[in-house]
């Protein structure tokens, strides 16, 4: 065979470069390691020591100081840590609510709308019926979080699978799924929730159903978009060429790549769900009394806005901080796990 333009060095059998193209987290570790090597060389003193110790760094150029690579500045995301801290606190309190030494959330323990005082149950004052606001806030967190998380997780599961099926199998299945999704998306969310709550009796399960149905379309859309993107890659073709069936390819090859982007959406959606639950409770279509929820507490306090604004302020701040924290975490999750944003 004649020598063409390509028959260069006979290095076959040897991988062409020994370093991986990039390490997993393009973090500061390698850079700082290099710097400390260089520092050591300098501490060892003398050009000889430097030449001996740092040939791999200076590339054998004698007399040239080894380059000092400044370590990558690590950005500390204070807000993220505060957000994680707040969510940890809320989840912990909500989970431990039954065993905490708190007054019963449904029984009065003093005068209506008593001001905050030193006793644990009265830290945040008493509500219109003389019930502990702190106790109601913590028990309310249980309901709001549980509803938001459960609805979010169920919707993620259903939405991801529907989106995967639509995006991978295409055809009529896709048309049907996307039509339903578009119909749901076109519905004003509050109207849909109101309809569900008035047809069925308001209860935990009714709310869960309504909120789940409400957010499924968001997950279907992102899952389908991601599936379309990933299914077009050559590794899917390669898997087909290996003889894998379509179902296996969809769930074993494509799905694992779709999940991170979908999960990154979850915190933001949970935040929206907590707001939605609050709105429903505010409208009186939430959980029946005396079960507390943050939206319900705002609703109960609305008549005393002028005299006792803390009755509204306290649950409102709790909702605000939780939503803010979840959105912060969602943003972080997206930049960290959703590679479509970075690439």
């Amino acid at each position: 065979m004649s020598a063409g333009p390509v028959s260069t060095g006979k290095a076959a059998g040897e991988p062409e470069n020994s370093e991986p193209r990039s390490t997993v987290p393009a973090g500061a570790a390698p850079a700082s390691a290099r710097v400390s090597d260089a520092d050591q060389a300098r501490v060892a003193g003398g050009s000889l020591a430097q030449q001996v110790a740092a040939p791999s760094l200076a590339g054998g150029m004698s007399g040239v100081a080894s380059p000092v690579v400044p370590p990558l500045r690590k950005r500390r995301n204070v807000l993220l840590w505060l957000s994680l801290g707040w969510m940890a606190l809320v989840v912990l309190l909500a989970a431990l609510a039954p065993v905490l030494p708190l007054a019963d959330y449904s029984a009065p323990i003093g005068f209506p709308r008593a001001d905050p005082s030193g006793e644990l149950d009265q830290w945040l004052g008493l509500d219109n019926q003389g019930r502990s606001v702190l106790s109601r806030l913590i028990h309310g967190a249980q309901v709001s979080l549980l509803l938001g998380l459960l609805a979010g997780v169920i919707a993620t599961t259903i939405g991801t699978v529907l989106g995967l099926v639509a995006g991978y199998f295409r055809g009529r299945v896709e048309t049907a799924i996307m039509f339903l999704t578009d119909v749901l998306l076109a519905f004003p969310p509050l109207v849909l929730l109101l309809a569900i709550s008035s047809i069925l009796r308001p209860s935990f399960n009714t709310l869960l159903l309504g909120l789940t149905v409400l957010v499924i379309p968001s997950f279907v859309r992102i899952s389908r978009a991601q599936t379309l993107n990933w299914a077009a890659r050559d590794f899917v073709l390669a898997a087909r060429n290996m003889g894998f069936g379509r179902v296996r390819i969809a769930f074993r090859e494509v799905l694992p790549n779709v999940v991170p982007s979908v999960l990154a959406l979850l915190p933001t959606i949970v935040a929206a769900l907590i707001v939605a639950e609050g709105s429903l409770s505010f409208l009186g279509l939430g959980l029946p009394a005396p079960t507390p929820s943050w939206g319900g507490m705002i609703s109960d306090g609305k008549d005393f806005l002028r005299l006792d604004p803390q009755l509204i302020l306290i649950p409102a701040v709790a909702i605000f901080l939780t939503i803010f924290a979840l959105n912060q975490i969602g943003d972080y999750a997206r930049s960290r796990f959703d590679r479509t944003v970075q690439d």
Partner: protein
Amino acid sequence: MSLAGSGTAHLRPQDQRLLSVEDLHVRFKTAGGVVQAVSGISFDVVRGETLGVVGESGCGKSTAGRAVLRLGEVSDGNIRFGDTDVLAADRKQMIGLRSRMQMIFQDPVASLNPRRPVRQLVVEGLTVTGASADERATRARKVMDSVGLDYDRFADRLPRQLSGGQAQRVAIARALAVGPDLLVCDEAVSALDVSVQAQVINLIEELKAEFDLTVVFIAHDLGVVKTISDRVMVMYLGKVAEVGEPEALYETPAHPYTRALLDSVPTPEVEGGFAGPALAGDIPSPLSPPSGCRFRTRCPLAQDKCAQEEPQLRQATTGQYFACHFPLVPAA
């Protein structure tokens, strides 16, 4: 000749062929009309040979490669692999066939699932047949060794931690693991650095000898194809323009398109870096290919006949086959 395609004069006796493709058509329906990606090409590959397929982007070479492995649609035609009719194979036969026909893709990193470590990727094909974990691990070590990757160093890496060349080695290892007879390399080195290209090509050559492979090497680089091919097929807009042994085809091209392709390869001399005028214009739209000879709109020798009559493949005095009414080398 009254065949629907561009002729089958260049095909070799049935008993020698490992793969034979006759009158292959691939059409895609799009909003703008029907794309005629491949229009009646025929070719064959004899066991142990390397067939190089060249042509500009959009000439249908990759589509044809995928059609052979039934990875893309086939509108019409006949594909035989060994004794099997590929297009008529049922699901079970197809699983058997798949392990005998493997493909290497253009973008090595994209052809590997980003969430699987190399150790799993290279033996992907064995899970179909239900090989045990031990078997797979042994096999993984062996095939990685064959492609020159250190198992202990690379086993746990993810595709994004590999360079292009390393990723392509992993892809080649994955293909080898199932013990194929035919390896279709679809622009397998086009995305790599030139130095790495040479390594991967050498590797494919070595593996071909070691594992008795038959190779279809699809590329747009004539130089790459020349060094490794026993037979070269030049395609233009879904048709075969010229096919034959590289010596004849490169030294004395019969088809003006082959001539033009060869002329657009830069020569080492500073003055007159290109041997001839560059091909003018773009490849016509496959939505409505030109009548008669498809190359006529860009051909310096085109005459009325070229618009009216489609040229069939004929043998030249220099041995190769060409489809042209006014060849640069007389027909035999």
